[in-house]
């Protein structure tokens, strides 16, 4: 039984590390900012998520049910998309170089400057 659980833990850790690695490579290699965003926000989030699953299994099998990681997972999965969206908005606003054609911006809204 414990062998099986250990194997499962190893699986999650390896899966997580691979996601994180792939995401990091993507951050370096992809051509423009909009594509690069996918690396840290999607792949790496999945990677960290998998590692946290492994952590749940590890601590639950040894010290009794461990649920703190779920809270961490929750934070991670809620904040990563938000930061991705904010970053892409900023990039859009600054008209960063893009391989795809950027959508037209409404200039009227731009006049009201301000950023809090």
């Amino acid at each position: 039984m414990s062998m099986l659980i250990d194997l499962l833990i190893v699986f999650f850790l390896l899966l997580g590390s691979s996601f994180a690695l792939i995401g990091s490579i993507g951050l370096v290699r992809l051509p423009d900012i909009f594509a690069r965003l996918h690396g840290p926000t999607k792949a790496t989030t999945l990677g960290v998520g998998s590692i946290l699953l492994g952590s749940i299994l590890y601590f639950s099998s040894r010290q009794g049910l461990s649920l703190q990681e779920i809270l961490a997972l929750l934070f991670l999965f809620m904040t990563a998309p938000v930061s991705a969206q904010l970053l892409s908005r900023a990039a859009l606003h600054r008209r960063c170089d893009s391989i795809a054609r950027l959508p037209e911006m409404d200039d009227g809204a731009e006049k009201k400057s301000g950023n809090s």
Partner: protein
Amino acid sequence: MLYLLVSIPFIGALLVYPATERLRLPPSLVAGLMALSALVLLLFIGFPVYSGAVLLSRAEWIPQIGLSFSFRLDGLGLLFAELILGIGVLVVLYARYYLTELEAGPRFYAFLLLFMGAMLGLVLSENLLLMMVFWELTSLASFLLIGFRRHTSEARQGARLALFVTGGGGFALLAAVLIMGQIVGSYELSDVLASGRLVADHHLYPLVLVLFLIGVGTKSAQFPFHFWLPHAMAAPTPVSAYLHSATMVKAGIFLLGRFFPVLAGSELWFYMVSGMGLSTLLLGAYLALFQHDLKGLLAYSTISHLGLITLLFGLGTPLGEIAAIFHVINHAVFKASLFMAAGIIDHESGTRDMRKLNGLFKYMPHTAALAMVAAAAMAGVPLLNGFLSKEMFFGETLVLKWLVEAQWHWLFPMAATVAGIFAVAYSLRFIHDVFFNGEPVNLPKTPHEPPRWMKVPVEVLVVLCIGVGVFPNFTVRPLLESAAAAVLQQPLPEFSLSIWHGFNTPLVMSLVAMGGGAILYSGRKWLFRAHDRIPFQISGKQWAESLVESIFQLGEMVDRLLDSRSLRRYSFFLLAIVVAAGAVSLWGESFPAAKALTPVTIPVVIGGLLLGAGSIATAVWHGKRLLAVIMLSIVGLMTALLFAYFSAPDLAMTQLLVEIASVILVLLAMYFLPQLTPPESSRIRLARDITLGVIAGIGVAILSYSMLVQPLDSISSYYLSQSKPGGGGTNVVNVILVDFRGFDTLGEVTVLGIAAVGIVAMIGGLKIWGPEKDWLGRSWAGDRHPVLLTTVSKLILPFALIVSAYLFLRGHNYPGGGFIAGLVTGVALTLQYIASGSDRARQRLPWDNLKLVGAGILIATGTGLGSWVFGFPFLTTTFAYVTLPIVGKFEIASAMLFDLGVYLAVVGTVLLILAGMGGLHQREENV
């Protein structure tokens, strides 16, 4: 009883505001009743003092420095206390009619009662240090009273000048009292008075005397410190009548009497005190004649009379002391009534300029009669009180011929007669110029009699003038005898108080003074012209102000010398000094490595390299601000990880949270900073700074290394072993914070609160115009609060609060605690501000962050005080264990309440700083 007596005015000062606002009582009524009840109490308990008794009461305050709450009621104290309270009652009554509705608020009466209490405490103090406390209190209270009409620059300048002079004198007096106390070995007045010639024979005696006289001279407006008094006339007239006739300026005189047995009797005392008194007497009398302002005349005549009293004390003869005390009473009575009369004239005619005031007798005959009697008393006309003491004064100057070198013996009687001539002349001017001498010129108002009750205080005082003048033995003798006995501390010589002593030299001097005064006054027009022609006018006020100014300039000069206003130069010097000091003190020392090093592991190496790289990158890219912040946060993160690696989870968490908060802060501040890179500094400076930085870094590294390898037997082992049994928690860090070193933490939380208040004060009304576009001319994004961010941040808040509560509750045993939980909550709430904007966030989080900080400090302090209730020392903790579902077993310690205080203070401060900085943007946009 003495405690009650002294505290009545202070209680009154506290009561005036609530009584006026809640009970709608007139403030003058409250103040008057308070003063009256104190007076009645004084007369009641002071009865045995007439027969020579001395009432003492004593309680320790800070026995280590000899400070105690001891009061003493003897003859001298009784006399002054009666003057303070008696005239105080009359002044309150007078002020009721003198001040306008607007001015006569509770503020005035609260100040007046405060001053009354301070004076009362001063004259009744048995402990010398306590007396100094009250002495300074009188200076402060008089500052408030003189500057009462704070909208006029005259009042503000006068008050500042008075505070500057009397405060400086107080400093000298404090030194004198301290030396005196050291010589005697006790600060209790009874011991000092019983010490006899101890102080006078000590080799420090001249120093004590000079310092003492500076204190006395500044307070009692003696030459050359007299110049503040005329400027203090900017005070409302009731204040002048009170402070500058009967009380404040008599405080110095009181001290002369108080310490007469200790300090007097030497040749030095005679020359210094009588010299000071004589020059003040003459100068005051001379200048009084040339004042055109009614109150100015009275002010200079007060200076002159104070000089007379000082001179009498300086003579050092027993009869001279009796005359001095007698004149204290007489002067207080007639001068208070004259000030009040001057106030009535000012009040009813609208001016105090004697060149305009003429012939007022027709308009206000009753007031005129009262003022004329009082002025006659000031001149020393027979049948009035001033005559008796002046007669004694003249008599005493004549006896002096044995004391002074033979060829100078005529100096004192001559000077006394000259001063008498001037006194008669200015009194005549007060009477003749104001009430007769033709018609008034361009008065702002048509003068008429004042309200009935406004004259009552003057009437009472004038009746006293006549009563003392005609029947001195019935009215004033018992009081005078007990006071004089208290001053002399030995049996009184025989003296007679009567109007007719036969035709002798003092009477001749009086007659000369009368005649001379009349002649002098009749030649006044010529005299005024001559006086105006004196080209130089010495202004003590200007002198004092330029002194203050040059002190400021000196301070600025020293400041410029030390502070170059350049952070870079500043830190360069700081580092250079530290490096030099370290090198000098540690040169040649060796640190043998006594402990084995822990093995180097790969994570530590990587972490260390990243730390170094992050620091260097921050320095290299400091021009690109955003990049530098990111590099700096690498340093912060690596530090947190290293803390965690080396088993310091509390530190790691704190570091992480502080890192977050400071990055937010830096980003907020960056918005206002110029976005272009400032010019780089020269290569030489760069090389210099880098060299210094590297040397300092190597030095710190060597020091830390040698510290770490020393076999150190520190207090930590005690904390580790005592944490569980003594503090009831297994998390040593938290137990140290809230229990072992709870007092430290309390202090730190208080500092945090003070910093928060400072920040509020600094950015409260601040408006900063942030740039409208970035450095490439692009405008900011239009969407201020992205929907996704706003929504998710609201969703996250409850979870963040759960985490925070979890960290808080388990803090005593596992990593966590109030400080960390507070940071979590603070950052989580700041996110709400960022996501939704200050206005929305304020609606949803409606409490006042400043009050939150205050509440935190109060709770923490309250917990500490709570242990007193159970008879334990401050901040003793107790604990018990509780089990809750989900959270598990945790422990309720009283330390947890303390931790709650820490938590609240941290939350409030974080929000104040971050939301305050963020709010600056908001305000700028709303304009």
